[in-house]
């Protein structure tokens, strides 16, 4: 599929297998490469710090079985890897420190995910639809 997102290497941090699979499905559909899926903060930190993965971006579920994903977000930010949040708590549930980070409210459509990824990963690229924020 010819898209501005084609070939981008993305990390998914999501603790619900069914939802993670859907995101993976959507990203694959968009031409992205899902480098890995982390279900826990520790696994997420390990992947975020792995330079060999050559991450282009990440989609982070805010709440991982009671644990907040922010340490992973910190690690990504320090490496200048752009990311978006995916949350079932609504965007108000995000800490002040990452208030400027775009967030997807579950459940979301593939189109919404695509637009948000274009916004953060491909500067100057016109969105293909409405940008949800």
């Amino acid at each position, binding site marked *: 599929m010819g898209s501005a997102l084609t070939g981008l290497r993305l990390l998914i941090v999501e*603790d*619900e*297998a*069914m*939802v*993670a*699979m*859907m995101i993976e*499905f959507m990203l694959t559909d968009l031409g992205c490469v899902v480098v*890995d*899926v*982390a*279900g*826990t903060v*520790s*696994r997420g930190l390990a992947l975020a710090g792995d330079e060999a993965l050559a991450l282009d971006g990440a989609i982070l579920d805010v*709440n991982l*079985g*009671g*644990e907040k994903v922010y340490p992973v977000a910190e690690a990504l930010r320090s490496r200048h890897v752009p990311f978006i949040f995916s949350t*079932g*708590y*609504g965007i108000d*549930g995000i800490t002040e420190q990452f208030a400027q980070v775009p967030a997807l*409210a*579950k*459940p*979301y459509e593939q189109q919404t995910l695509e637009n948000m990824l274009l916004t953060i990963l491909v500067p100057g690229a016109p969105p293909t639809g409405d940008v949800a924020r």
Partner: protein
Amino acid sequence: MKLIPRPDAWKQWRPGPRLVIALAVGLVVVGLSMAVYNERVAGDQKLRAVTVQADILSGSVTAALAFDDRPAAREYVAALSANHDVEAVGVYDLQGGLVAGYSRAGSELPATNRVGPPALISDRLVVTRPVTQGATRLGSVYLRTISEPFARRAARYGGIAMLIVMASLVVIVLGVSNSSLAEAHRALQAEMEERGKTEEALRRSQVMEAAAQLSLATERGRAALRQSEQQLEFALQAGRLGSWELDLETRRLAASAFFRANFGFEPDEPVDRYEQLFARVHPDDRERLQRAVDRAVALGADLETECRTLADDSEVKWVQVRGRAVYDDRGSPVRMAGVSLDITERKLAEERQRALLDELNHRVKNTLATVQSIAMQTSRTAETVAAFEEAFLARIGALARAHDLLTEVAWDGASLTRVISQTLAPYVGQGQSNRVNLSGPDVRLGPNAAVTLTMAFHELATNAAKYGAFSSLAGRVHVKWNLDSSSDPVAVEIDWRETGGPKVTPPDRRGFGSRFIEKGLAREFDGEVQLVFDPEGLRCHMRLPLSPKLQMAA
């Protein structure tokens, strides 16, 4: 207490009637005695006076008699006749013949004179004296004076006596009246004294009665006040309400024990300043409290605000403060009074409710995302709409049962045994309970883990029903799990093994189910999962490290 002054003793002495009469009689006796004595002395004096007159006359007429000078004798007699008391005067010669004489009308001189002692003859004092020259007797003189008549004297003495008697009577009357007056006075005084005492007693009894009534009224008032205060206190205590009153001018604060407790003060800690209270309010809530107070005072509105308080311990307490300002006649705010209530419990309940609602919202959203995922992936793999419908509804059903299980335990720690047995139940017909063989320790699953494992076992059971053990009557499914304490991290090992089913052949391509189990499940638990398509029967080995979502039951 006012007393009538006791008069001096002498003033109180009053003579009795007997004494007064005795005194009067005494006066009469003394008066009479004096009259008698006076009569005697007066008589003697008169006698001496007349005798002297007679002697003077005797001396005067000596020469006249010696020389028989009658005119001279008459001159001396005439001189005496000027005296009104003199009734008759006579000068007689030695033979007793009258030489010169005078007598008042109606009276006579004796023809001859014989010298004798003075004599009183019917109120007339008669004095005769001889006239002598040396030893030679020349003649005699006769002097008769009018003595005061007895009747006149009697009248005079009678008058005096009358005066004395009258005086006595006056004394008696005065004495008696005085004594009766004194008696009356004493009686009056006694009566007055008695009345005074009575009045004093009355006054005292009135005072006492008034005092008693006042005291009774005061006591009743106090009792009523006490009762009302007690009722208020009871109501406040029953409601666990603190009460407070703030003087808006001096900012003095009067606070009840509950109020002080609400703001974290010790029971015996003195609290009387608004500033003390303010210091106990959470810094973030101070401005809000002050604004609420100012607004209530300015608008005359009810104060109703909530604030956190700083107790000595780190525990945050919530207090609701209600009140209203009181204004004076000119409408200036004077003070503010109200109640306080510890609403920490309510706040915590509200927070819990808020958290529950947030959690519910989160779960609903996640569940919708799960349903979305199921729908999307089922649709991509289903060859027909009917196949999609069947697979989709079965998966939604499994998801619903997972939620049922979680609801049973209030979304807190579903049992692995229950998750597996419930998921496999639809594939176990009546009398076929031996088709499933479960064994393993009690493992508690968090909500997400319970849902994921339910979906995983659902996929395994569905596959078994289509191609494996559940597709033949002889087929059996064995699920065994245990804790591998030797590994790091410690993990739960779960083995799914099918026996007695048709011969297994590996599938041409991996469907949603196998991808979900091998990849989704493994990644969620940060563990390892292998599907082994053993011809004897499908096997699935799961190695899931312990984590907050997967724990051994206590």
